[in-house]
């Protein structure tokens, strides 16, 4: 099967100095999506930025998977709230012009 647009998990682990177990745990927690092709684990490019951020939190700040899971949910909430704030500001702007 083609692996275009996929990065081998082993390659990622080597570059980022993380154990394969780390990627597996994130995948099991539903934080990232991985693909298994011919017994090899691959990471879609679209997941890479998210995974790199998690790897940095793990290696640079020594945060475990449970912590990363909590942080991911909170960051998502922050982003949602920022988005809502932006929409409300734009809506308010409409009334301020009147």
């Amino acid at each position, binding site marked *: 099967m083609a692996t275009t647009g996929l990065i081998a998990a082993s390659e990622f682990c080597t*570059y980022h100095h993380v154990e394969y177990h780390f990627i597996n745990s994130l995948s099991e927690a539903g934080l990232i999506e991985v693909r298994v092709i011919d017994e090899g684990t691959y990471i879609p490019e679209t997941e890479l930025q998210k995974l790199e951020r998690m790897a940095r*939190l793990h290696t640079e700040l020594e945060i475990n998977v449970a912590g990363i899971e909590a942080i991911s949910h909170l960051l998502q909430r*922050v982003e949602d709230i920022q988005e809502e704030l932006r929409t409300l500001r734009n809506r308010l702007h*409409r009334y301020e012009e009147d």
Partner: protein
Amino acid sequence: MAFIDYYKILGIDKNATEKDVKAAYRKLARKFHPDLNPNDTEANKKFHQINEANEVLSDPEKRKKYDKYGENWQHGEEHEKYAQQQRAQGGRQYSGFGGGHGQGFESYEDFGGGDFSDFFQSMFGGAGGQTRGQVKYRGQDYNAELHLALKDISETHKQTLTVNGKNIRITIPAGVENGQVIKIAGHGGPGVNGGPAGDLFITFLVAPDPNFKRDGANLHTTVKLDLYTAILGGEVTIDTLTGKVKISVKPETQNSTRVKLKGKGLPVYKHEGQAGDLLVTYDIQLPTNLTEKQKELFSELAGRGKVKGEG
């Protein structure tokens, strides 16, 4: 170039042990790490300072030099010799894929550590020396603003921007929101020591339009209607974002009546083929400077008694 008090930055005193330095760094890094503070440039700046302080104070040799020459870094032959040696040793290597694989509308993200202060560079000769194996050095992220008119976002189009002397052709998606940020991966500052380039973040600023007010994908506009058309009915021509349209006005239309022109608003962002509505509010204009004849006719009309719905 001012002296930087690394101890103060980490909130420790000069007698702090290596363990104290590590603990202080860890605590502050967890607070100000860019991944935990998206879109917060202040936190990002603070993280750079913390990183730099840790780079010096966690390395016994650097710390010794810093303690010896710190405040007098501009003087001293030995310091200069040391700095030259460090420069000659070269930099650390980037290892990783870099953060450039995300698509589109992500929040601000940066690794810390790449931009050491002039003070650090002068004293320790750039980012060389001891490394924390995993630290990566991406180029700086750039931020830019793109001012657009409402009409500019009525359809997806491409525009060429010049950022730091380079021309970049970007797609401006129809229906983009005011304040929305788009990330152009790899178009920020160049990486350090072979690291990947930073990203370019463009904020779209959609200027208010004199004729249309925006509410998401819906647009609002007010149209003046003369009294006679309002009472007797007729047709009125309305400006929309994509041209003029003629709509019929029902007889006995009341002031502030709102009509909806379906699909004549803005395209719905990232939903091709879908568009919001144009909501038209009628502002009925009473006639002024009436002629004697017109006054007579209004008097005659008034004399016929109240009409249904009046008063």
